[in-house]
């Protein structure tokens, strides 16, 4: 009796402990869920409501989508964003993974630490501030690297920001600001690859290149996909870079460049909040669909 009693008692205690733990878990999750609803779900719902109604709140079907798609800037903005996303995602995947692998290879602790810090610094600057840094870098008359620019054939700011150069410029700026954090994340992921796997590869005679290509990159796959999903959503919302460039160049380059800028124009210059909401809903649908494709194709949520 005593024995059962004790075990029952400890079971209760255990259950109580588990209950307390799950309550704590709930509290943590609840805080997030409340914020998610207040600042994520509700505004999205609000935008969807706006997208299908007119200024008076009457249901208008898809007319906001049709009007905005017929705007003469719409297709231009779509193609700008498409080209930019190709540049940006390709550079992100190739260079972030390559740099993370290099970093991981470096035996020396100090060099590796220093490099990790160095990569991360630009990410610590606020988005707008880092764009301003680049506006200086790209103006040959004030740039610290003006000799490099002049070797490349650029002598005035106008030449640097020619329309054909914009996707590349925005990619460079975005990479410089955004990639550092991802390099550190990938580095962490590389450290999580079990030592025995790496050792087995080495014993089997794999060289650095083979280890990277056949062992490390496949094991990083989920992280790379995670990065691509978030970078796609972020890149589709391109705004700060072209907007600041347009201010800096007094409108020569970057005005009405991206879809997000177009929504800003609709909302505030044409006083068409509903049209703006329609375009932002389109962006949401595209980003969510892209994420869904990546998740489905990669088995992102499959257990190891």
């Amino acid at each position: 009796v005593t024995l059962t009693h004790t075990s029952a008692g400890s079971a209760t205690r255990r259950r109580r402990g588990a209950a307390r733990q799950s309550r704590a878990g709930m509290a943590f999750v609840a805080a997030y869920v409340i914020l998610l609803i207040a600042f994520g779900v509700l505004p999205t719902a609000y935008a969807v409501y706006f997208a299908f109604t007119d200024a008076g709140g009457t249901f208008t079907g898809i007319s906001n989508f049709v009007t905005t798609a017929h705007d003469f800037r719409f297709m231009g903005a779509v193609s700008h964003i498409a080209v930019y996303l190709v540049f940006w995602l390709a550079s992100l995947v190739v260079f972030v993974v390559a740099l993370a692998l290099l970093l991981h290879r470096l035996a020396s602790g100090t060099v590796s630490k220093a490099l990790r810090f160095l990569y991360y610094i630009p990410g610590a600057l606020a988005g707008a501030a880092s764009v301003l840094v680049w506006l200086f870098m790209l103006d040959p008359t004030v740039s610290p690297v003006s000799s490099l620019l002049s070797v490349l054939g650029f002598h005035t700011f106008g030449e640097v920001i020619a329309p054909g150069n914009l996707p590349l410029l925005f990619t460079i700026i975005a990479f410089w600001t955004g990639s550092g954090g991802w390099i550190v994340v990938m580095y962490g992921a590389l450290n999580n690859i079990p030592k025995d796997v790496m050792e087995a590869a080495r014993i089997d005679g794999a060289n650095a290149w083979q280890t990277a290509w056949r062992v490390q990159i496949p094991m990083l796959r989920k992280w790379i996909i995670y990065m691509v999903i978030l970078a796609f959503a972020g890149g589709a919302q391109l705004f700060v870079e072209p907007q600041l460039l347009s201010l800096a160049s007094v409108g020569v380059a970057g005005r009405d460049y991206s879809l997000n800028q177009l929504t800003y124009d609709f909302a505030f210059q044409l006083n068409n909040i509903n049209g703006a909401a329609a375009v932002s809903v389109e962006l949401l649908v595209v980003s969510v669909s892209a994420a869904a494709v990546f998740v489905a194709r990669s088995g992102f949520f499959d257990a190891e």
Partner: protein
Amino acid sequence: MTVNKPASSSKRVISKKRAALLAGCAATVLLTVSACGGGSGAGTTTKDGFAQAAQKDGALTVWVDATRLDAAKLYQKLHPEVKMDIVSYDGDANGSNYLQTKVQLFNRTHKGWPDVVFSSQNNEATWAVDAGFAAPLNKGLIPSATLANFASGANDVCTVGGTVYCLRNDLSQAVLWYNAPLLKKWGYTVPTTWEEYQQLGEKVAKEHPGYLVGDAGDTFTPEIYLWASKCGANHITGPKSVSVNTTSANCTKMANLLDTLIKDKSMSISGVFSTDFGKNKKDKVLLMPGPAWYGSALFQGTFKTPAKQIAAAPIPQWKGDPSPSTGNVGGGTWLLSQHSTHIKAATDFLKWVTTDNAYQGSKAPGFPAYAPAADVWLKAQGAAGYFNGDLSALKTASSQVWPEWGSGQFSQEAIWAATVKPGLTQGKSIVSMLPAWQDAITKYAESDGYKVSK
């Protein structure tokens, strides 16, 4: 203020959440404000031609650009009893639409409007009236005697259906600025026709390479040259209608002149406010067609050209043209908010800043739109001794601005910047881009709801 304006999204992971957070905050604020903002309808009157909010004590909020900051500060100094909140913003320069963006937001939150605003643009009335922001000024607020003293046509850009909704700060009629000692030293004379101007430009290119007879790289280039040449690119024919024809002879002959001089390199394409011009070309200016405010804002302020060099002459005309014409670059406007709760103080400030000699007559950098102040201003400029000779060319030009170029809601400067400027940098001729320019004006005008004819 300019920098934090558009920061709603960026590339990083965190910023996506931050953007959502911001949007959420905005939504919450919006809901709260509209929920609490219902009670302000009490105590309103409709004198002076609009529904006025209940008047209150409190600070007078004035928005100005960096240049007009001096005006607001001077007013504060002379009227220490007025509580003022002076906010500096970009003045809507280059069609940034900052003011419009903010007013649309304030209209949603039902508060936050400034009492008096300066804008460097002439087209604010095209939206500020529909947005219910600009107060009518000739229905009681500003006496008609005061309004009558403005230079003729000065407040046309502020007038919608016979009602005046803003006051013009300065006229920006274009004249021909030139370096008088240098011109004399080289034995040239001031050109009076565009034909002479072109010949001189070609001569300068050969005899003194590197020196300039003008600049065609600014966003307001069409407003200096093509407007003066009577090119019908921007004829506002009604509140929502515009006639656009950029390929007429008046347009092409001026475009050809510019192309010739650009090829000769005696016409710069950098833009006078570019870092490139400031570093490499500011001491190479022989002639420079440009607006009235070039005198003090550009030569004296930005270029720091020594005194007694810069002089003003009438802008050249096409040979045989019986009616002289010139262009105009901006010339700001002052608006008073319908929502102001300090209308008395706001009106006093507005009257002072546009007409009083303490500012317009002596301190203003541009040619005052208020005629009595303009006379005082001209005398003051002569007495100050910066310019070589008097500025009477400005007074003559003030009545010669070609009236068939208007101020629509779309920004001609922004359109030129995005359409023609990149091609110019790549070496295309202006003449070859005139049709594309027309196409762009048409598209922008139509997207703003204008009916476009040719």
